[in-house]
């Protein structure tokens, strides 16, 4: 965060603390490495792939013609280029809002109704699994979120403003926790999302399976829970605010390797 008096001394102190991990953090990272083999996220991925290829909904169609930005049915590499502008909807969309579009146009579901379903329940559980599958098809690839269309550039600027927007009972912004290097909340390290935080970190680490509550979380769910902890009112699923934040973080993470679906404590 910007403070009006950041002397050279303070900056030096911060940098020494920032890059020296505590023993605790080293231990936690070792635990995470052990968890990485046998990531339960793979179960959700498998289900998602099956859902992608299964004829469902009022139109009894599969999602195999869904255009995620690289052409109808092209799944590999699509995740690392989202969010992006889509001419057919005239909007910049992230993975999950685009899945809602495909489920509506191809399968006949009502996107507005889908967006209201509680996370982990009913069709929202299916969207979660499909998103996990799609993300997994870009595993190991590097983020290249486009900034070509005017709307994409606008959404970056909107996302940036949202990122720094303080509010709620606690005056928190995303930047309050994610605005500096080497910080942590209690024992949980929080990456600096105003820039590229590195391979497999931040935007490049979701969707992820959270061991602590045994749940598979997508980026929409992650943002939703961030806003909950910021004591904000709730962002609607797939809303422009959530997409704009994805553009901001995704563009900042240009070149970072995606490890989704990842595993978290």
């Amino acid at each position, binding site marked *: 965060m910007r403070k009006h008096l950041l002397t050279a001394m303070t900056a030096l102190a911060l940098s020494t603390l920032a890059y020296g991990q505590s023993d605790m953090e080293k231990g936690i990272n070792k635990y995470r490495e052990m968890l990485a083999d*046998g990531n*339960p996220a793979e*179960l959700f991925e498998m289900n998602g792939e099956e859902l992608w290829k299964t004829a469902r909904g009022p139109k009894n169609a599969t999602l195999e013609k869904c255009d995620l930005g690289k052409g109808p049915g092209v799944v590999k590499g699509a995740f690392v280029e989202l969010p992006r502008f889509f001419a057919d909807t005239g909007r910049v969309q992230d993975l999950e809002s685009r899945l809602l579009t495909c489920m509506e146009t191809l399968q006949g579901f009502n996107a507005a109704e889908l967006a209201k379903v509680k996370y982990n329940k009913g069709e929202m559980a299916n969207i979660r699994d499909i998103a996990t599958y799609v993300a997994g098809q870009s595993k190991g690839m590097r983020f290249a979120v486009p900034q070509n269309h005017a709307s994409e550039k606008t959404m970056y600027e909107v996302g940036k403003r949202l990122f720094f927007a303080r509010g709620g009972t606690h005056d928190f912004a995303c930047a309050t926790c994610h605005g500096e290097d080497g910080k942590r909340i209690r024992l949980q390290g929080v990456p600096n999302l105003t820039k590229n935080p590195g391979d497999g970190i931040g935007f490049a680490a979701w969707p992820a399976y959270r061991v602590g509550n*045994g749940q598979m979380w997508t980026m929409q769910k992650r943002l939703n829970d961030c806003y909950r902890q910021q004591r904000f009112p709730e962002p609607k699923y797939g809303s422009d605010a959530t997409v704009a934040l994805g553009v901001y973080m995704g563009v900042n993470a240009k070149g970072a390797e995606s490890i989704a679906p990842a595993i978290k404590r």
Partner: protein
Amino acid sequence: MGNPMRIRAKSANGETTVRVLMSHRMEGGQRKDANGKPIPAHHINTVTAKHNGKVVLSADWGPAVSQNPYLAFSFKGGAKGETVEINWVDNKGDSRTDTATIS
């Protein structure tokens, strides 16, 4: 019943390593829901692994194993193309068997 397991089996130097990811709630039976009502136990009790029809591992689990259990083990023998079969039975009498080909 239940959801499919994800099984990977690889053989090298006369030994086969098997990794299994099982989909199961593994509810211990000690927790209570938001209204204070106890959540009933629902967890895997036994696990059996077979190679070519012969048992290579058997395990007794219970409430202590957590959700979506991950099991990794190895056994002597096994060759590419042969089958490994994993079966679990839970405390409700539900069971599931999945197979995988050794690579």
